[in-house]
């Protein structure tokens, strides 16, 4: 097992050099959410009702925006091919990609959630649940988008294909996350939805890295 450290350092360094890769999705998230109150009107109750769905749809789309380029450069310049030839480091490479993807697209959404709560008039109990769903849900978004990116890496214009491929996988997450937030806003128990999200996350965590490695191998052969 190759150590993860140097690989993660490389990914973070690349993110620091290619700021558009992670700034664009984050800005997209903020822009969409700030446009909603303008579009549907600033009525506080209406905003509170639509908030769960809107927040999560914006999160899904912004993560999708970051997904396409994940493996593109490394595929084009032969890094993926040469890592596949040497086999051993592939798992560390994939895990570093996953972690860097979450740190650059998932974590900013979590950090921005207070601002989002303010924009959409989310009250305190719902805000805490929103934070929890984002903490549990964004790693799952990263896992699925890395999988989609690995599957479509050799497709020239893989953007639409990628969206078609992974948006259906996002839907269970969308349903349970917004259901948890709605339940919380009505002061109902929401632990069931969170538990399902945690189960989905753990399931994906166990299987996705293996699937990504296979997808990369198929794409270079």
């Amino acid at each position, binding site marked *: 097992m*190759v*150590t993860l450290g*140097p690989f993660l350092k490389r990914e973070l360094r690349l993110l620091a*050099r290619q700021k558009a890769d992670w700034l664009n999705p984050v800005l997209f998230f903020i822009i969409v959410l700030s446009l909603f109150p303008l579009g549907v009107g600033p009525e506080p109750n209406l905003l509170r009702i639509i908030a769960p769905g809107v927040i999560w749809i914006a999160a899904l789309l912004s993560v999708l925006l970051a997904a396409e380029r994940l493996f593109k450069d490394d595929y084009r310049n*032969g*890094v993926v091919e*040469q890592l596949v030839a040497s086999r*051993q480091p592939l798992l560390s490479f994939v895990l570093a990609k996953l972690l860097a993807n979450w740190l650059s697209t998932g974590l900013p959404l979590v950090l921005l959630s207070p601002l989002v709560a303010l924009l959409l008039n989310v009250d305190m109990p719902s805000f805490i649940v929103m934070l929890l769903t984002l903490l549990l849900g964004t790693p799952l978004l990263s896992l699925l988008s890395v999988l989609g990116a690995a599957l479509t890496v050799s497709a020239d214009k893989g953007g639409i294909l990628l969206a078609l491929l992974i948006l259906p996988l996002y839907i269970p997450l969308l349903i349970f996350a917004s259901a948890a937030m709605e339940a919380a806003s009505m002061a109902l128990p929401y632990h069931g939805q969170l538990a399902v999200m945690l189960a989905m996350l753990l399931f994906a965590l166990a299987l996705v890295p293996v699937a990504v490695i296979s997808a990369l191998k198929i794409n270079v052969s």
Partner: protein
Amino acid sequence: MRAIFPIVDSQRPVIKHQPFSVPVGQLLLQAQLLSCIRQDRVLFEQLSLQVHAGELLQVAGKNGAGKSSLLRLLAGLAAPDEGQLLYCQQPVTDVATDYAANLCYIGHQSGIHEQLTALENLAFWRAAAELPPADDFALLATLGLAGLEDIPCHMLSAGQQRRVSLARLWFSHSQLWILDEPFTALDQSAIAMLQQFFLQHLTCGGAIILTTHQPLSMVYDGLNTVELAYRW
């Protein structure tokens, strides 16, 4: 950990004194009756070859004859349509991890990220080869890249990028090197240095499979050539 000793002669880069896993003269890699079909075109069929430790195999042939495809088969990146590949007399599919650990494949693409500097790219490949981090300034200087260590690789010329890419061979512990067009974009002095380094690797018991359109200027004892004909 295998020791790496610098040689006093400053013209020569560091040389690795290390016993490879397969002794000199023994069969390292054997291909039996390989066939490769790409887009309904048979590139080659019934191709058999052997590589012993200490040998250099040059794959020659016209553009499109299937040289790169053959190299990718030998590197285990693609499966042959027919035939099989043996590493130390065992099917490569059974000993895939051992084979991959003893192999250094540098393909058509350089394997370096343009946004990273030469040092950062080498640090990545060191980590990928499970080697401890080391100071690569001296290595880059021997490769004629002194002063360019901290510049993102997209600012370097094609030949300089190729040098960064090949620098990996200098710290590789793999016995078998599979190199697709290693001399592309290199100038005469770099080609001479690289060939000198190939000779060292072969004398240490390593083996090399490469494709090139340039004739090899050095005299190698264990040089074999496979010529692939272009077929319709």
